[in-house]
């Protein structure tokens, strides 16, 4: 017995116009999704490591939780917070602090950016500047450090055209002053220690037992929150002291 299978039902003839439209739609949809996935590269390859504002949660969670609204940018009294651009992939619109250009100096006292964040990407569990952990300062170029050479410092720490600002309590409690407009006259450069907003985060230690030896070296302590103030104020070019983003005390 030869059971012949019934002839397969012929599919309805697709209108070539409809078919082309379907192909176009699929292609375009794929292209858009592809474009959106481009954001993976900068993030996973760490093209642009960024110092995040105070209270930022773990980096991947931070990128997810941030709604990219920029409210933190708006409340910062020294305008230290910038938003990520296209080259940061999923970090588009995500806030960061370019410490060398404008560090967070906690002028606001109460961590305003944390209070402004609507999603908790900047963790609301932080209420004092001492609880912040953005990274740790590290003496990157010890040979450039003026204190280690026993040198003093005269003039503005970062001369014009540098536009960064800092709040000098003795001048004005509320109005930050341009670093380029503020002149120092120091016998031994101690800018990173002098302007550090956190108590006991950094100190100058003698380099030898000889009391006549003027040379001192900056030593970072556990209290350091990584705000970047020392990196901004360091008068050498490039900065002798830098922030290691998200490094914790004890990490290598």
């Amino acid at each position, binding site marked *: 017995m030869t059971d012949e299978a019934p002839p397969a039902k012929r599919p309805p003839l697709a209108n070539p116009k409809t078919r082309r*439209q*379907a192909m*176009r*739609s699929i292609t*375009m*949809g794929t292209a*858009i*999704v592809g*474009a*959106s*996935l*481009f*954001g*993976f590269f900068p*993030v996973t390859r760490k093209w642009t490591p960024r110092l995040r504002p105070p209270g930022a949660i773990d980096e*991947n*969670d931070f*990128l*997810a*939780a*941030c*709604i*990219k*609204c*920029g*409210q933190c*940018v*708006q*409340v910062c009294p020294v305008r230290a917070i910038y*938003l990520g*651009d*296209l*080259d940061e*992939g*999923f970090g*588009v*619109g995500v806030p960061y602090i370019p410490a060398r250009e404008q560090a967070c100096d906690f002028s606001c006292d109460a961590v305003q950016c944390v209070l*402004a964040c*609507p*999603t*908790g990407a900047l963790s609301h569990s932080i209420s004092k500047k001492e609880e912040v952990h953005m990274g740790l300062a590290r003496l990157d170029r010890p040979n450039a450090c003026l204190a280690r050479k026993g040198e003093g410092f005269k003039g503005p720490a970062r001369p014009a055209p540098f536009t960064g600002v800092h709040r000098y309590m003795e001048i004005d409690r509320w109005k930050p002053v341009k670093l380029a407009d503020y002149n120092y006259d120091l016998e031994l450069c101690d800018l990173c220690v002098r302007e550090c907003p956190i108590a006991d985060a950094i100190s100058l230690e003698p380099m030898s037992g000889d009391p006549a030896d003027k040379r001192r070296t900056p030593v970072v302590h556990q209290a350091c929150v990584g705000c970047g103030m020392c990196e901004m104020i360091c008068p050498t070019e490039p900065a002798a002291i830098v922030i290691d983003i998200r490094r914790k005390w004890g990490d290598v």
Partner: protein
Amino acid sequence: MGLLASLKTMLGAAPERPASYTPAAEAMHEAKRQVKGPERARQIRAAHAGTHSNKWRNIRWATLIFLNMVFVLSFQFDVQLVEGSLTASRVIGFHMADLYSAIQVMLAYKVILINLVIGTGTVFFLWWLFGGRTFCSWACPYHLLAEIAEKIHLMLAARRMVVDYPLHRGTRSVLYVIFGLLAVVSGYTVYESISPTGIVSRALIYGPGLAMVWVLGLLVYEVVFIRRMWCRYICPIGLTYGLVGAVSPMRVKYNLENCLHEGDCRKVCLVPHVLEVTKKTYAPDVDVAIGADCTRCGLCIDACPTGSLRFEVKGLNKLL
């Protein structure tokens, strides 16, 4: 139009001709069938003799620019009236969050954030009141740019220099699901990185960056290839608001009686499938509310010479 049919059409189904009419509508369709050829042409010419008004477009553009300028100026002059951008903001201290941005964040972060829930609640209510996609045409800055691109596209198309290659409207629904899944699987707010709404809003407030190149690229593509591509076929923000506003009290209402069915409203519309009802014999009733995908932009109201399309607040006529 039934709610279900209106949602189906928004998600991508082709609008359907009604199976039955109310007696009043049936009579009107029949009466229109009697008017033919030269007489009908004369009626249409007579109706279009007057100048075309741009009232609603002008009001809408002014509102859109004003809204975005409030964001820009309140940061510029630090008055803290409105803080943030269109993705999330505080308006005189009240949290507001864009629904789709909030969805992306919560899908990616996988935490229910109380501030976002409050913020989306406010926004949800606001846009439900106005009709969800009102956001698109009355607040989204990309919409304005795309409208200008569309004008250029139409100008070039009239000179046969460009041709529109429409996509299937279901593309947006498919992409909606894909972007949702991508957020869950990858743990990143994938859509946000390409969202022209967020990018343009931030560019206005915080200054433009490289990301604007992407937006300009999209606009050029829309001019040359696909008319209103992003707003019509892709944007998940628009679809979210469409779902919110599906049962909104404010909408555009169509009245069959004086309509000449010449179709000028469909030519100017961003989402012409919602105006399918204005085709001859497509209206099941004398008064029909326009479907969920409508952005309440008012272009059809401006274009209609017979006043057959109007803004309506549901129930307001009964109250007055």
